[in-house]
């Protein structure tokens, strides 16, 4: 009977092992595929439907100089982790990501490389804080504080510490969270799903550029930042039910972009002025 049990366990582990080995092994004829045929992974937008995004992407790819990727070739993932697994298993050949995220990823996973610098697409998103629509006082406070951080160079310093100065393979630094006695709380949602902007360190503490910006904003507006760890898909629900006050949101900047800025903005939500802009690049496995 014991032997039978052992045998069962052995079979289990062999199956798991085979699965893992199989996942790394699908490299067949990727190179031969025409550029137009590749599938591209993209993080799901919370509110704009896939159909709507596809329509918009069609416009993007109609711009002269852009790569001709058919809109139906996008596959949507709700987590960076699942998208990366999609890339590993060959469901998609490229991932559409922010430049900083792509660099962070490549520094920690040397099987990947940036294939498209995004020069053809000329797409970039900006990062803002999102607050409830009726929270106008908070929005004004945050707007003012962000402008102040831009002017005195604090923002550039934070970009340097938490994004550009990260060493290859090293843990990003912790974010100091000053406590002000008796100050009101500012609850921010951290998903841990988009390093180096939003991540949870090995010791379980929230870190990343977004968190650092919010910590500084809390200091400037005289509030105690309280971190709520939450799954990225539940951000909007948490915000509207007042479980959190601020979530991080990425939007397309104003200007000559073919994508409307508020395409993904949920009802009842207001965005602050952007504090960072990042271009979109494509990441793929090394050939």
């Amino acid at each position, binding site marked *: 009977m014991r032997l039978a049990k052992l045998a069962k366990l052995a079979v289990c582990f062999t199956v798991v092992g085979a699965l893992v080995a199989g996942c790394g092994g699908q490299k067949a004829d990727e190179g031969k595929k025409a550029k137009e045929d590749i599938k591209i992974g993209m993080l799901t937008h919370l509110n704009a439907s896939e159909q709507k995004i596809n329509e918009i992407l069609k416009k993007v790819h109609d711009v002269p100089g852009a790569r001709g990727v058919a809109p139906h070739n996008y596959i949507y993932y709700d*987590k960076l982790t699942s998208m990366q697994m999609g890339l590993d298993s060959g469901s998609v050949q490229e991932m559409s990501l922010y430049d900083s995220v792509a660099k962070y990823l490549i520094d*920690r996973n040397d099987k990947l490389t940036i294939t498209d610098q995004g020069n053809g697409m000329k797409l970039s998103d900006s990062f803002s804080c999102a607050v409830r629509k009726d929270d106008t006082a908070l929005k004004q406070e945050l707007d003012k504080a962000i402008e102040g951080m831009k002017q005195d160079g604090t923002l550039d310093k934070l970009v340097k510490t938490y994004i550009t100065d990260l060493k290859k393979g090293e843990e990003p630094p912790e974010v100091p969270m000053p406590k002000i006695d008796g100050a009101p709380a500012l609850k921010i949602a951290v998903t841990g799903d988009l390093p180096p902007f939003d991540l949870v*360190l090995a010791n379980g503490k929230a870190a990343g550029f977004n968190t650092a910006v919010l910590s500084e904003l809390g200091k400037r507006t005289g509030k105690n930042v309280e971190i709520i760890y939450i799954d990225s898909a539940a951000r909007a629900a948490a915000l*509207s039910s007042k*479980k959190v006050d601020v979530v991080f949101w990425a939007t397309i900047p104003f200007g000559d972009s073919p994508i409307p800025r508020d395409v993904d903005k949920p009802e009842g939500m207001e965005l602050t002025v952007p504090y960072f802009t990042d271009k979109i690049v494509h990441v793929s496995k090394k050939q």
Partner: protein
Amino acid sequence: MDTNLIYKIFIADGAWLTILKGLAVTVEISVLALFLGTILGAVVCFFRLKHNKFSRLIASGYIGLLRGSPVLMLLMLLYYGVFAESNLSPEIVAVIAFSMHTSAHVAEILRSALLATDYGQVEAARTLGFSKYEAFRLITLPQLFKIARPVYQSTIINLIQWTSVVGYVSITDLTRVIYNTASRTMQPMITILGGMIIYLLVSYAVNAIFFYTDRNGNNGGK
């Protein structure tokens, strides 16, 4: 596989402690929900088997609703809807949601086990002078435990896995820790495999508890 990588993902910089904390949260929610869910399930089962038509209707409605809907939606509704204004911690709301969900399953397990016992034995006991309560405690209950045991065991293992959605209500459980780690290290395959093994070990621990506490000797080994 690269041992250095495994060390970096699961051990380095206190990562192991974070994973253990996540595991503790998963176990804590599961144990509390199991305890409360079992009690509540017994109560629901009692009403389900009453001769009163109204109480039967309510109980079967409760069971049908909870067994027929995803527990994540119940959890989201409770946390962001029903208890949004209250100051209940997310852990308490999660325990409430999973207790409710478990109770529906436990009620059905108990009902089917009760129906499987032979009512003639209770009647025989009653003619021999046992009181109603004694007949239940001495005749029905031991058989009930024996019949319900295997299904109850698999419900516990299911419950542990159901709790993996608590990340939606801002609880950092084992699943969330694993996802956070996967994002931070950018090595999702190995990390998620590691998480799977931890869940597997927990399931085995539950099975082991059932195996070694079985006094009847029918522990599947035959």
